[in-house]
């Protein structure tokens, strides 16, 4: 029997969970690795150097501070975590002294002066970033575009914008062959955009965050509730689900949610306080982004919410097991249920609101349009056309004024009626469009209307109405040209390129030329192409969609042909169809008159054939 004599007494519990401080810090460093790698890939080795310098400075300043205060050196890796996070928060081409100053500030001022690890009241990295932003506003806002091939070794400062500073203009038009909105989303998700070194690649942040959650290093409540609140706030402040997604995927929000808001010392200890803290973060971040002077608000929001943490943990205490009120009743779980309620409400609001404000972007491919700038399909299936134009409000002999107009014209899903018109820009002097002339009316009703006068007979408001009528007609035209399915007819002769049919509507794609030459100066033949839709029942022109005409402004006034029969159009004089007699526009209109004649001829042939 072996003698047992080496045993020692110790306090219970005799087992302990595997977690220890260094392992936790190591886990955070591991989780930051994807961000470091992606930052290096997109922004080059210079950016990696920034992170390395920042980390080294943080580590060294902590040890120097320890030496100065005659304390033992600390090797708990927490300084490295601060250094890497701050480094990843810097612009990719910040000068070398930025990480040095930031690192010293973060470690010495924010952390060590307050007692070191676990004692600081504010997140060192977030505070240092805010400090740098205030002290070096210009340097800290100079971003470069993400470029896998071009940035590798270059240290040039070529300015670029982030999504938050430059909007979608800062993004490439297509990414991996995906155009438009989803291209933006993919770009932002994979980090091929301007921004701080580590925060742009959301995929990397999510991988790191998932690792931290799997290792149970961070509490899931903070990132989850932070992002939930931020999403709801973005939806409320921008009123658009697509913008909400772009907001969530841009800037340092995701990085901050996983790596900065979850900092142990500066986040609340009780789970429902954490929820409250995360709600505050989400609200503040989005308010700063929307109304603040700075494009990004994550660091500032973290810093501000850090200040509330001590008071939250001091006065919002967990309800103890079996705790009773003075009256002997079970103590109400106010925080628990209010926080759960807030989260449920936010989630519910998102569930309800996202479909209502989500749009499908619809591309307009074939036609060229005078007024239409974009179309998107809303959740109800309606089409929302953004139209822009100008109304000539000049008073002859007195002044000349062109009022810019912008409206959102909503057609129902079948393209039959205008369901809504939202004025975006129009006269602020009272010459506003009379929307009731349009809303609820069909194409035919609007096209047939002759009296466009508003309250008085001939005012600027009337001219706005007339212009809006043109815009609405173009919306209907675009709908029927681009968004309606026609059945192709086997007919193509002469200038008629294509004939199609839908019920009683016949559509002919017709081409022609207009001689825009100016005698003795230049010779120019403008190629023309239109899609002319004729209603066979009434034998009148219903729509004319422009496919190709002059881009110099010599465009035809299509509206003068609409609703007219072949005879009426043939009988129109040159003066009737041209605004002035001798410009390229008139020449074009004359050509169009002939082309429409060809379409009627084709219709006769198709019907008889």
């Amino acid at each position, binding site marked *: *029997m*072996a*003698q*047992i*004599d*080496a*045993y*020692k*007494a*110790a*306090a*219970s*519990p*005799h*087992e*302990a*969970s595997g*977690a*220890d*401080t260094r*392992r*936790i810090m190591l886990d955070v460093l591991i989780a930051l690795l994807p961000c470091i790698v992606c930052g290096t890939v997109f922004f080059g080795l210079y950016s990696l150097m920034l992170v390395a310098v920042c980390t080294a400075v943080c580590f060294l300043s902590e040890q120097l501070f320890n030496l100065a205060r005659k304390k033992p050196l600390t090797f*708990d890796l*927490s300084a490295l975590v601060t250094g890497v996070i701050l480094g990843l928060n810097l612009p990719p081409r910040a000068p070398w002294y930025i990480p040095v100053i930031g690192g010293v500030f973060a470690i010495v001022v924010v952390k060590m002066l307050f007692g*070191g*690890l*676990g*004692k600081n009241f504010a997140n060192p990295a977030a505070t240092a970033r805010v400090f740098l932003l205030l002290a070096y506003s210009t340097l800290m806002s100079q971003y470069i575009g993400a470029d896998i091939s071009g940035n590798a070794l270059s240290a040039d400062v070529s300015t670029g914008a982030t999504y938050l500073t430059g909007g979608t203009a800062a993004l490439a038009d297509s990414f991996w062959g995906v155009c438009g909105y989803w291209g933006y989303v993919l770009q932002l998700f994979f980090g091929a955009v301007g921004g701080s070194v580590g925060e742009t690649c959301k995929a990397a942040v999510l991988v790191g965050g998932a690792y931290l959650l799997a290792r149970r290093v961070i*509490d899931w409540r903070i990132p989850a509730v932070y992002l939930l609140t931020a999403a709801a706030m973005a939806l409320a402040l921008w009123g658009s689900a697509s913008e909400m997604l772009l907001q969530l995927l841009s800037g340092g929000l995701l990085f901050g949610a996983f790596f900065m808001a979850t900092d*142990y*010392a*500066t*986040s*609340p*200890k*009780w*789970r429902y306080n*954490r929820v409250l803290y995360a709600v505050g973060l989400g609200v503040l971040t989005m308010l700063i982004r929307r109304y603040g002077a700075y494009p990004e608000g994550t660091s500032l929001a973290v810093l501000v919410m850090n200040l509330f943490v001590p008071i939250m*943990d*001091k006065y919002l*205490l*967990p*309800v*103890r*097991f*079996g*705790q*009773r009120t003075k009256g*002997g009743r*079970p103590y109400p779980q106010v925080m628990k249920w209010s926080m759960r309620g807030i989260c449920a409400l936010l989630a519910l609001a998102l569930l309800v609101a996202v479909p209502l404000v989500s749009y499908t972007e619809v591309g307009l491919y074939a036609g060229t349009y005078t007024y239409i700038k974009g179309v998107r399909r809303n959740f109800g299936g309606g089409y929302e056309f953004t139209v822009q134009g100008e109304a000539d409000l000049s008073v002859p002999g007195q002044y000349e004024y062109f009022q810019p107009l912008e409206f959102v014209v909503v057609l129902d899903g079948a393209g039959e009626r205008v369901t809504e018109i939202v004025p975006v820009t129009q006269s602020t002097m009272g010459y506003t469009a009379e929307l009731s002339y349009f809303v609820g009316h069909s194409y035919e009703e609007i096209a047939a209307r002759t009296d466009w006068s508003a309250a008085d007979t001939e005012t600027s408001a009337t001219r706005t109405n007339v212009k809006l009528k043109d815009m609405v007609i173009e919306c209907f035209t675009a709908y029927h040209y681009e968004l309606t399915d026609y059945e192709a007819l086997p007919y193509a002769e002469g200038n008629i390129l294509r004939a199609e049919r839908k019920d009683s509507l016949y559509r002919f794609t017709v081409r022609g030329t207009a001689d825009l030459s100016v005698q003795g100066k230049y010779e120019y033949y403008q190629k023309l192409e239109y899609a002319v839709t004729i209603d066979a029942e009434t034998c009148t022109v219903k729509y004319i969609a422009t496919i190709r005409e002059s881009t110099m402004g010599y465009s035809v006034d299509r509206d003068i042909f609409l609703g007219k029969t072949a005879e009426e159009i043939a009988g129109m004089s040159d003066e009737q169809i041209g605004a002035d007699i001798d410009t390229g526009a008139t020449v074009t209109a004359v050509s169009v008159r002939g082309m429409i004649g060809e379409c009627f001829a084709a219709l006769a042939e198709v019907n008889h054939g």
Partner: protein
Amino acid sequence: MSLFVSGVHPRGRKERTSKVPITALPAPGKLWVPLSRHIGAPALPVVSAGERVLRGQLIAHADGKVSANVYSPVSGTVGGVVGHILPTGKKGDHILIENDFEGETALLPPLAGRTPESVLARIAEAGIVGMGGAGFPTAAKLDVRGRAEVLVVNGAECEPYITCDERIMLEYADELLQGVRLAMLACGAARAVIGIEKNKPEAISLLSQKCGRGGEISVKALRTRYPQGAEKQLILGCTGRTVPEGGLPVDAGAVVVNVHTALAIYRAVEENMPCFERVITVSGGAVEEPRNLWVANGTPLQALADACGADADCARIVSGGPMMGEAVFSLKVCTASTTSALLFLTEEECSARVSSTCIGCGRCVQACPMGLMPVYIESALLAKNYGEAKRFGAPSCIGCGCCSYVCPAKRYLAQSVKLAKKIIKERGI
């Protein structure tokens, strides 16, 4: 069913002994039977040196209601009332008995009727104390004068390693259920719930089978989560009732007894056997042959170490479970009715705590099953701000040790909270 939400989940490590049937450990030549290993006043010796005692003979008498009779676990000669080391390190009164290995047994007189009063009196007479570990005299606990509606039987055994209750449930199921009925009779509860953690499926199915459906005794399978077997958490898990803060289980209409206690009640009432031995699990990585043993009270721990082959790479010896048990610093310490396990842990199994700075991770707050904030209690204690420690809930601590278990900085949080609780109580803050 409402369950407590916090707690921790240490590795069970019960597999080495959960299939090992209970065997009896032969009593050693000398036994030091402790007089005060239960809660309450120490028992008063009724024998003197040189007197011959039989196995099951009263050797010390309870001093008041919250105290317990002590019986001789062997036949032999009383060596006197001697000071002997207690697990706490202090010396305490023990009755030394020199075993004559005759095994001559004296039983209690048969109990005539089965009324609450007679059963309670027999439980008190047999010297039964809570065998889950606290050692509260069972008769005092069950004497609730009809305020109990439900008897909760603790078969949770949430501490790692320990399997004595599991083996009792498997090997003494009928006796145990009989004991539960007697306990119900004694406390006046109309029904009983046996709470068993789900990591003991055999015990759950066996006892559910024996209880049947719709009977007065039911079995409740509980989530495997430490401290599921803590009194208040167990009552919540088994009945959905919450014991008010600072109150007793009976304030929630419940009385809790351990399965081993229930068995002891059966033996005292039906077999006229007083309480002088118990089942102890001897386990741990430094034990060659882990066992569940019937051990006579007063057996020096060295005898258990010898019987199970504890080897030299033992780094720590723990009496009780690894979460709440006490480290033993001398194998001369003797067993009592409250010793549920003796663990010989290797270096890898027990954590050497080296405290470092609190990093404020809040894990102790998440883990605390009582809803306290250990991190702030500790800092209030260090600042000698006991009022603040009380505000953060120190007096409600049940000492489960979850906070220390999860602490990545390895701080002695459980001890801090315990100290704060003690100071607050002493100073009446």
